[in-house]
């Protein structure tokens, strides 16, 4: 044995770089995207994004459908935040038509969108807990999220896909009985959110997995166009509700939640504080709902649209969502461009995985929303010459090492 070792002139160390495909189907990925992570040891040295697994051609389809059919199409771009998509698209149509919805409808739209923010934030915070291994917290949060889903059903008539927004208003109005029910739900859910907030702040495991992980600087946020809670957790005060003051946000008091830390924990805590703000907004709306009509007569809406273009934004739960609608007159839009917040937040953050540990990748991805390996490179050490060199598996197979 000793003789054999002394005869050896090469040592092959494998693996040095491991390619870990995270997605397109993965427990931590809610949308089909492939993030290829290259790791040396436990640390990420390179990351790449591969998209297109779920491209449905919505923008092209929108050109073929009428302006009104597209409201339902846009609502189906995202299951979680369908109301914000419909609101953003409908407001673009209203700008082209020079139409202003009544105040009561604006307040009701705001209420539906804030309920959506509440259940979306609860979902991603629950998923964050699940990804770091705290499944019980996930289950509890998802249970209490159902209360918000119920509230959304009371307002819009449906717990998920609302189809609530229409040109010139909303589809359903609220009566005093429904307002009382909604207030009761908000009273019930608030202490639960405060409790989960405290769990995130105090739990040792969550702190170990989330604090000082995936830190982003304000300059990284703005140069890479990162949006929503991801930007605000790094101290960049960007919020479309403030920039555009659409719907009732010009009248409803609210504050932009920011933190300075810029890590995964900061992004989670921003979401918790935003839920608190959303609850306050919902309560304000229920107590100050303007009188008047909210549901327009659909038969009086114009079938044909004038020429024009509009660029609208909404603060979706994940950040700024933008719609560009162009009309050349007629019944179909000439161009509809949808830019979702995840589009920026997921693709543009790929370089920031470098330097982190593999185990942190799902936690980071969950904080802005990741498989198994095939070895790519090996290191060959020439013991006689004392040289280390990296070669590809292909070259090794060819005997060129």
């Amino acid at each position: 044995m000793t003789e054999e070792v002394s005869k050896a002139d090469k040592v092959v160390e494998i693996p040095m770089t491991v390619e870990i495909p995270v997605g397109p189907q993965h427990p931590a990925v809610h949308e089909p995207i492939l993030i290829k992570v290259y790791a040396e040891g436990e640390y990420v040295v390179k990351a790449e994004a591969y998209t297109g697994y779920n491209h449905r051609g919505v923008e092209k389809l929108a050109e073929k459908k009428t302006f009104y059919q597209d409201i339902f199409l846009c609502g189906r771009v995202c299951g979680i935040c369908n109301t914000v998509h419909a609101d953003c698209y409908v407001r673009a149509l209203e700008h082209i038509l020079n139409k202003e919805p009544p105040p009561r409808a604006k307040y009701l739209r705001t209420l539906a969108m804030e309920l959506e923010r509440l259940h979306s934030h609860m979902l991603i915070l629950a998923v964050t807990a699940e990804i770091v291994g705290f499944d019980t917290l996930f289950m509890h949060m998802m249970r209490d999220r159902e209360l918000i889903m119920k509230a959304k059903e009371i307002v819009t008539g449906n717990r998920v896909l609302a189809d609530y927004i229409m040109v010139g208003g909303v589809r359903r109005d609220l009566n005093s009985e429904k307002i009382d029910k909604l207030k009761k739900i908000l009273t019930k859910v608030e202490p639960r959110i405060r409790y989960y907030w405290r769990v995130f702040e105090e739990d040792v495991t969550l702190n170990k997995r989330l604090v000082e992980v995936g830190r982003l600087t304000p300059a990284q946020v703005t140069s890479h166009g990162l949006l929503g809670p991801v930007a605000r957790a790094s101290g960049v005060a960007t919020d479309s509700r403030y920039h555009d003051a659409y719907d009732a946000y010009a009248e409803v008091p609210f504050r932009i939640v920011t933190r300075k830390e810029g890590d995964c924990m900061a992004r989670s805590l921003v979401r918790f504080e935003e839920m608190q703000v959303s609850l306050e907004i919902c309560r304000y709306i229920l107590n100050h709902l303007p009188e008047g009509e909210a549901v327009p007569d659909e038969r009086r809406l114009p079938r044909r649209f004038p020429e024009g273009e509009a660029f609208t934004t909404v603060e979706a739960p994940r950040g700024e969502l933008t719609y560009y609608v162009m009309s050349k007159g007629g019944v179909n839009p000439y161009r509809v461009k949808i830019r979702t917040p995840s589009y920026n937040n997921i693709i543009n953050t790929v370089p920031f995985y470098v330097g982190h540990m593999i185990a942190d990748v799902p936690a980071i991805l969950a904080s802005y929303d990741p498989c198994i390996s095939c070895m790519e490179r090996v290191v060959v050490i020439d013991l006689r010459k004392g040289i280390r060199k990296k070669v590809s598996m292909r070259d090794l197979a060819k005997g060129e090492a």
Partner: protein
Amino acid sequence: MSSDPLEIPDVLKPIENLLKGVMIMKPGRIVALLEPGDVVKAYAALKARYGETGLYFSTLVATDLKDEGKIRIDYYINVLEKNQYVVLRTYVPRDDPRIESLLKEAPAALPGECEAYDLLGVVFEGNPHLRRAFFVPEEVAEKGIFPLRKDAGV
């Protein structure tokens, strides 16, 4: 949309010398018309004036204007300091749509440029990440179809 070439809004002062016209897009977005070669310069000038954390690149919208033989490219920039959306608008010929990539000034333009290349065939020179089938299914990309072109037949 209204056009007023005489009045240059404050937010566009840093790129005053590059402007070919100013328009307003609803609701209240300031559209700066530029030559294709001036877009990167204009973005760099805005960044120099408002600082790296004073603005961010939001959205890239490319539109096929088949009847005019052009492709219009709009760069939407949110100037946080002024709380104002600015649109840098330029046109490139439809038969050879080429423009300098904004990546070196704004890494945020990456998905927008990749998408505009994949769906409309606009070449962003200097962007090494352009590839077909970024979003479009491979069988469509292999046929050389750009789906968002008006004559794509999809």
